[in-house]
């Protein structure tokens, strides 16, 4: 079994994180406290190194362009896009977790190792159309996340959150599996694009079993993007998990799930035309539900993390609207949106670390007046919130803009109006965070706590947040470069959709 250099090059981005993931636990042998500190540093360093290396090779790949698929792997531009997306998210997460876990007093190498595992899984998940690899990828990135949610055992919530996430997730993935099996059953091949072709050839495109299979597959994806009504794990899991992990889940999981959905439904299942139409129909319905429910519930949250969780649900709604529009431009918009969303949400969750909020102290009350204490962070917070609300000229606006434009272009004016109304509602709860940060003086009790706690020291998280802010701003002012140079090419040369 020997691989050509190009194939190696295509594999490297996956290999580095995998290697790191396997190496890191081995370092945890030494038990001496003095060295333990250094060891942790080395662990995080290794993880970061692995991620950076992977990023490096991914950019190399991007320069060379799409790779011929081998094994069940398709290292096309879409996969590379995903890789870069996930890797960046992971890097930010690692930076933040160093500070966060120190604040929580729970620094473990395993966490980063698990993170790397799920990074590998995500890359696989989004870079194949072969169901086996798809399923394995799914499990490879889900299982570590289940564990990560519950990783801070000191908190009683963590295990509960992990349990909920795991149980619902397991049900979802067995549905996903069953769906795949059904499709395999009638097509006789486990490669979904091949399956689509054969089904088309045998005229089984609309066979009930195929449709059922497709529906179950879709369920799997929708669960991961936490669309209503598969969303309920989201707030609990986010609240339970450490801030950086929550950020990573909200961004990377959603992202890869959407990209995989993109690859499978508009991509592989393109031959089965009617199926795509039904997908859009059901996604439209669920998107509306997601927008309404996500935004309205976010409105009444007192805990910032839960608010962000519901906001991430509602953002899933916007992205789903992109699928409803279903034009290549819309998909470009979806990818663009994802990139900005990565920056916004990683930043938003990073803020919690940067402000040194630990445990359950993540309510709006705890944030009061912090914006003036840490002006840079405050500025970043303003950028994130306004961008999440879709206020120009920030990146978030352009994501919405592209998607709405396609919606209107394809005649879904009603949905577009609903979308803007939803973002009006969302503006309120995003402003709430700014109100807390800037417009309110810290409560006496908060002051007392602050005086008790040591001064917040989160250089890495702060840096990560600033990077995110820079990305959001860049998204606002270099939108065309990001869209045309990155997202659009990923769609064109990955999905093979012609603009």
């Amino acid at each position: 079994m020997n691989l050509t250099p190009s194939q190696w090059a295509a594999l490297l981005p996956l290999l580095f994180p995998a290697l790191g993931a396997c190496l890191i636990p081995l370092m945890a042998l030494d038990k001496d406290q003095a060295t333990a500190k250094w060891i942790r540093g080395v662990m995080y360093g290794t993880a970061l190194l692995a991620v950076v290396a992977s990023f490096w090779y991914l950019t190399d790949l991007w320069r060379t362009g799409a790779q011929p698929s081998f094994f069940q792997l398709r290292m096309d531009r879409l996969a590379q896009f995903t890789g870069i997306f996930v890797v960046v998210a992971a890097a930010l997460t690692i930076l933040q977790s160093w500070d966060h876990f120190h604040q929580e007093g729970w620094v473990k190498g395993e966490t980063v190792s698990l993170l790397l595992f799920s990074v590998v899984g995500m890359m696989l998940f989004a870079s194949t159309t072969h169901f086996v690899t798809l399923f394995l990828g799914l499990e490879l990135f889900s299982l570590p996340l289940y564990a990560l949610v519950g990783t801070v055992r000191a908190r009683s919530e963590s295990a509960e959150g992990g349990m909920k996430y795991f149980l619902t997730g397991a049900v979802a993935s067995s549905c996903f599996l069953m769906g795949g099996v059904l499709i395999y059953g009638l097509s006789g091949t486990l490669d979904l694009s091949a399956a689509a072709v054969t089904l088309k050839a045998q005229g089984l495109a609309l066979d009930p079993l195929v449709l059922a299979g497709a529906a179950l597959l879709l369920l799997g994806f929708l669960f991961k993007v936490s669309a209503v009504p598969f969303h309920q794990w989201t707030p609990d899991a986010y609240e339970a998990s450490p801030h950086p992990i929550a950020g990573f889940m909200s961004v990377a999981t959603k992202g890869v799930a959407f990209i995989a959905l993109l690859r499978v439904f508009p991509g592989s299942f393109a031959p089965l035309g009617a199926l795509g139409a039904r997908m859009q129909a059901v996604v439209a319905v669920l998107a509306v539900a997601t927008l309404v429910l996500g935004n309205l519930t976010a409105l009444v949250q007192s805990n910032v993390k839960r608010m962000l969780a519901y906001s991430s649900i509602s953002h899933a709604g916007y992205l789903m609207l992109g699928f409803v529009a279903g034009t290549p431009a819309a998909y470009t918009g979806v990818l663009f949106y994802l990139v900005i969303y990565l920056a916004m949400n990683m930043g938003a969750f990073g803020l919690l670390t940067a402000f040194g909020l630990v445990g359950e102290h993540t309510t709006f009350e705890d944030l009061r007046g912090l914006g003036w204490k840490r002006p840079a962070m405050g500025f970043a917070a303003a950028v994130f919130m306004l961008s999440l609300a879709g206020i120009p000229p920030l990146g978030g606006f352009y994501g919405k803009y592209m998607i709405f434009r396609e919606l209107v272009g394809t005649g879904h004016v009603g949905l577009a109006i609903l979308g803007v109304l939803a973002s009006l509602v969302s503006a309120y709860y995003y402003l709430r965070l700014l109100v807390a940060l800037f417009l309110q003086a810290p409560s006496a009790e908060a002051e007392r706590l602050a005086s008790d706690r040591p001064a917040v020291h989160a250089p890495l998280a702060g840096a990560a947040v600033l990077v995110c802010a820079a990305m959001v701003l860049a998204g606002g002012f270099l939108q065309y470069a990001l869209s045309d140079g990155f997202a659009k090419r990923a769609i064109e040369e990955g999905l093979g959709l012609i603009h």
Partner: protein
Amino acid sequence: MFITFALITLLGALGMLLQKNVIVAGLCMVATFFGVAGLFVLLANPVAAALQIIVYSGAIMVLVLFVIMMLNSHQEEEAVVSRPIQRWLSVALLAALVLGAVKLVMASGGLKTLAAKGAEMPQAMTLQKVGTALFADHLLGFEVAGLVLLAAMIGAVALTKRNL
């Protein structure tokens, strides 16, 4: 023959669903696994059957029962408050799903032809074929599966090991 194994499988599952005592429920599940293994035999797939018994009944069930013992929570605890809506909604939904499933199977033309075609096909699977498939076509998958196991292990350790 098929009916027997099918019944064993389903009744086992049903027992697990209804049985109050957790241990008994676990044993019912073992029965189900055996039933499934039997079905595999009928499907002329002894290897699968063997694996089914070894892995599931052997590994997983033992693990589960071990945990049950460890947590010494043999009886299901009393419900905080009964959830009729949850129950009846679920039951109705499941009934619908079951009927739907049968209807689905009946309705699917592709399935019928496949059944007709496949019935007289000989079982051509050999371990050698499987091996090549595993290590040639699915090498990647194999590696990944390894990763999954490793990840799960690390995860389990991270979640449970007392002082890490």
